[in-house]
């Protein structure tokens, strides 16, 4: 497919702009003026529409294909939520800062306030900030608040404890905030090893970060005990809420003993994700951490009106321009209110049922390192297929040929040749059956004709990409030719 720059024809355009009645040379200093045109592509509107429509058709998306990417909760993004966002088009983010401007944005402030309250109710935390722009930023805000709380107690602690099954962002967050990371191995049951955890804990540990349920798709039955042990050492416990979809309406992490938690609106609450984003990672806290929440916060007066509250002196401050990814907050509020309490309970029940169905249908064909009932996702190993030289990656590429987005592979790191499948609640049994059939087909090919898997994908616009070369030679260069002259942009 040609680049949009290659389709450019001099003088072609989609819009006729009025002649400028301002001379840039008269208004701007010479140093800010272009010596030559910007080199933008010149096309008609129809050409642009066709270009991007055709590009989008070469992509995998939830709207076109089953997308069982483990730990990512690629559920259907309801179109009604997109309608809700349109209601807020044109609201200027500075309005509430203008004198009397608040009265013009009561609806927008109300969205943020109501969503924060609903998230607090769903998770059992005392309050939420909807500012973080992604899950990882929610994590960072959470660990910054934990650090601030320790400082308020006159303490400066050194360590953050994570299980070896954790998302990579957990240790990365701890390191970014300035902590040293202590890793606890996983027991044969798939939980954090409690004995090693006890030995690891000391009074220099600031926080324990847990994913609940964990990345193996298992609910740690000892999680309350882990919280109690951590609290016994004066440490706080962080809940990575990436897997909240499994426990909606069933378990409230705040009641188990978690002190801080982030949720991913783009996973659990059905907002766009994976190239369609942006994300949003609201962070919630228990009572004692309330003063440290990011600012600004939206508060409600006794007459029901909303306003931007003065930041608390202890607040960790502002994390994002204005109020976070507001459009995403609107979608999430629409999602929650459309489903209601009973709907959210059904979400988690159906998500867990679907994952267990896939797990039980495939476990005769793939190794299942932790063979217990799973929550919202199941983790297989392609160790059996590896004996024929077939890697998890080969199976993933074969699935693309057969019309399915691959599951997550090689994560969690503790499972050899991991294949992590999260079907979500929005898929039908027919879709799951079709996927299962292709997974079985791949397992059979691994035995009878592994070569067929090594050559996948064969039906896509590009064949197997050289990931090693891409990672070793990060020379990203965009170049194109306009009127016989090569132009480029080196990044």
């Amino acid at each position, binding site marked *: 497919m040609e680049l949009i720059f290659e389709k450019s024809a001099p003088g072609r355009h989609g819009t006729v702009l009025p002649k400028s009645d301002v001379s840039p040379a008269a208004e701007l200093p010479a140093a800010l003026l272009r010596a030559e045109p910007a080199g933008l592509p010149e096309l008609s509107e129809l050409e642009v529409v066709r270009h991007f429509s055709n590009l989008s058709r070469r992509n995998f998306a939830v709207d076109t294909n089953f997308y069982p990417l483990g730990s990512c909760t690629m559920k259907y993004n309801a179109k009604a939520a997109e309608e809700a966002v349109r209601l807020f088009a044109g609201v200027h983010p500075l309005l509430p800062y203008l004198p009397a401007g608040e009265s013009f944005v009561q609806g927008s402030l109300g969205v943020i306030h109501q969503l924060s309250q609903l998230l607090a109710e769903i998770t059992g935390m005392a309050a939420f900030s909807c500012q973080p722009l992604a899950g990882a930023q929610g994590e960072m805000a959470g660990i910054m608040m934990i650090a601030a709380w320790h400082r308020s107690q006159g303490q400066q602690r050194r360590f953050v404890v994570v299980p070896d099954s954790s998302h990579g962002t957990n240790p990365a967050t701890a390191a970014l905030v300035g902590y040293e990371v202590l890793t606890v191995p996983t027991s044969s049951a798939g939980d954090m090893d409690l004995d090693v955890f006890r030995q690891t804990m000391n009074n220099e540990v600031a926080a324990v970060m847990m994913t609940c349920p964990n990345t193996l798709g298992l609910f740690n039955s000892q999680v309350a005990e882990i919280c109690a042990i951590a609290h016994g050492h004066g440490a706080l416990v962080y809940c990575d809420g990436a897997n909240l979809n499994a426990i909606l309406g069933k378990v409230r992490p705040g009641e188990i003993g978690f002190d801080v938690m982030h949720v991913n609106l783009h996973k659990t609450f059905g907002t766009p994700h994976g190239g369609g984003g942006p994300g949003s990672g609201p962070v919630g806290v228990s009572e004692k951490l309330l003063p440290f929440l990011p600012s600004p916060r939206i508060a409600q007066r006794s007459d029901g009106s909303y306003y931007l509250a003065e930041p608390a002196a202890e607040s960790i401050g502002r994390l994002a321009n204005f109020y976070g990814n507001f459009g995403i907050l609107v979608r999430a509020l629409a999602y929650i209110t459309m489903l209601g309490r009973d709907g959210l309970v059904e979400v988690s029940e159906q998500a867990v049922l679907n994952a267990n169905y896939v797990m039980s249908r495939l476990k005769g064909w793939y190794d299942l390192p932790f063979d217990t009932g799973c929550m919202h996702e199941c983790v297989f190993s392609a160790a059996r297929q590896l004996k024929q030289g077939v890697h998890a990656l080969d199976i993933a590429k074969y699935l693309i040929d057969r019309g399915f987005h691959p599951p997550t592979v090689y994560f969690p*790191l503790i499972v*050899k040749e991991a294949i992590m499948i999260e079907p979500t609640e929005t898929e039908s049994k027919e879709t799951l059956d079709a996927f299962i059939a292709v997974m079985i087909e791949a397992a059979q090919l691994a035995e009878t004709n592994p070569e067929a898997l090594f050559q996948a994908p064969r039906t896509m616009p590009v064949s197997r990409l050289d*990931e*090693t070369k891409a*990672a*070793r030679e990060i020379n990203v260069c965009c170049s194109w030719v306009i009127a016989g002259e090569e132009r480029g942009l080196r990044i």
Partner: protein
Amino acid sequence: MDYYFTKEHEWLRLDGQSGLVGITAYAVEQLGDITFVELPRPGREAKQSEVLCAVESVKAASDIYAPVSGRVLAVNEQVESGPEIVNQSPEEEGWLVRIELADPGELRSLMNREQYRDYLEGLS
């Protein structure tokens, strides 16, 4: 030449008061193609079992732990520009760091080749 091994799949090859440190063939096989190696500054004091450097592969980023305590005498700059050397020759050309032993007694906590082979068998 004597090789010592850790449970985290680092090796140490001793020659005199110092030794070369790298990752084992098994580690490389698990990691897949290595795409980036982050080496320590020469002169840094390393402590046994603490993070010494890091490697990234197409599958994961992994910390490399110091098999023994001591001062970093030199690093293999060739693997910085050509990380594929670690894949091609993990236990020879693909060494990462030369470390000066602070306490030869620490060698007792490491495995010899035979013990390491048994340990690997227990893993699969």
